């Protein structure tokens, strides 16, 4: 593939995507992505596990810190919480707080 064509693809992509969608923190969105398996797409739970979409951010952070410390008993969340940093809890909290059920 000649470089000229590659450049055209990049320009086309850039023009298509330059828009108002820069509000989403893509790194936070990426961190949150694997939570969907249990908590639903964008934290919109289809049952069982708690809904995270729209969850109050302070409540999210407190819950994750309590899972991490063991202050709050859990079957599985303590094992996940221990794998993340407190800063990541903040990013996740902001992401989920901004999700609206739709």
């Amino acid at each position, binding site marked *: 593939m000649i470089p000229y064509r590659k450049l055209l693809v990049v320009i086309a992509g850039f023009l298509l995507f330059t828009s108002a969608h820069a509000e989403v923190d893509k790194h936070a969105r990426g961190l949150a992505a694997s939570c969907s398996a*249990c908590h639903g797409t964008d934290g919109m739970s289809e049952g069982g596990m708690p809904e995270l979409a729209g969850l109050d951010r302070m409540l999210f952070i407190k819950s994750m810190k309590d899972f991490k410390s063991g202050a709050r008993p859990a079957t*599985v969340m303590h094992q996940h919480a*221990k*794998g993340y940093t407190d800063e990541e809890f903040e990013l996740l909290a902001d992401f989920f707080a901004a999700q609206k059920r739709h």
Partner: protein
Amino acid sequence: MSFSRRDFIKASAAGIAIGTFPGLAFASSELIKKKGLRVVVVGGGFGGATAAKYIRKWGNNKIEVVLIERNPVFISCPMSNTVLGGSRTIEDLTLSYNVLKKKYGIKLIKGEVTAIDPDNQTVMLAKGHIQYDRLIVSPGVDFMYDGIEGLNAKVADASIPHAWKAGAQTVKLRKQLVAMPDGGVFAISIPKGPYRCPPGPYERACQVAYYLKNNKPKSKVLILDANPDITSKKGLFMAAWNELYPGMVEYRPNSMVTGVNAATRTAKTEFEDVKADVLNVIPPMRSGVVADMAGLATVDARWCGVNFLTYESKAHRNIHVIGDAVSAALPKSGHMATSQAKIAAAAIIEMLQGERPDQNPTIANTCYSVVSDKEAMHVANVYRYNAEKQAMVSAEGGGVSASRSELEGAFAGYWLKNILNDVLL
């Protein structure tokens, strides 16, 4: 057509583009005319379907996505062992691709890929070809029969099902179980790792034991494990066998099956011949053979090496590999495939804009094993990208359930509901 597929691949390698070879252009039609940026996804399982959906979702429907899948419907392999136990039917695990088509505008092509041309960025099927800017190959696994005398794909379909891809073989294996006499033996053979779904075979032993305990209590489950020990959730599986199904389940490590006699349902190991009433041989696995069409199986000619920031193949920069086919110190699970799919989708969207992908991907993986109609247990772990090792490594704190429980059984059901929703709806 006088020009064979092998000739075409040689011609492509020599740098001849499709359009300049009139004979081939006449024979192969462009299945969907390419107008703008396009990602083609091969394989509509947990990995491929998720990748297709998330490229549309996170790309604001601006990138065309073509999904090529040979099966008419999606059937979940996770939880399919409960079809053997009897608490689910295969229909409970079967979903349509319609929502992916209608809600996300994914173009679905039902068919099998026959060739991939990385230089001309084209995927070939029997009925025509499709061009791509980026290709995602999510081919799952295929089975290696050459080490098991008397077993091949035909025999597996007919009488010795592996049922390691949920569908017809799962139903067949369940039927064989139901037809088994009381006092019979259900033998399951587990291949040497790595294989799809490490705890799966042990979960299957539990589900079969559950069915037998309630219907044919004099029967036995014999596990012939090629591995030196139980590969996942060992203590929890042994507790389940000893406490829920005492005296019914026998586990034999270092027992690789090297041959089968389909007529007599006899399995041959290094040390003995084992006759069973139902014989479930799970053969050793490799990445789905579609990977070979572009030389993607760079590790032991078996699994696909990738860049863990983008899932780009080590063989070709514009081709990404996700799911079970990936060579990694990561469990080959449905959840893992969906997570890799999302990392790849985000990376592709960034790269198509000339932007840098996320340099710090992190994955939380949860895997439930259901040991009866009600009880389950899990293993959970977070994985992070390590820039020095250029690989995903395990983070702090992961582990398994303290014990199995009905609560975890309930969570396992909700896990299934939520993940299937996330993949297909």
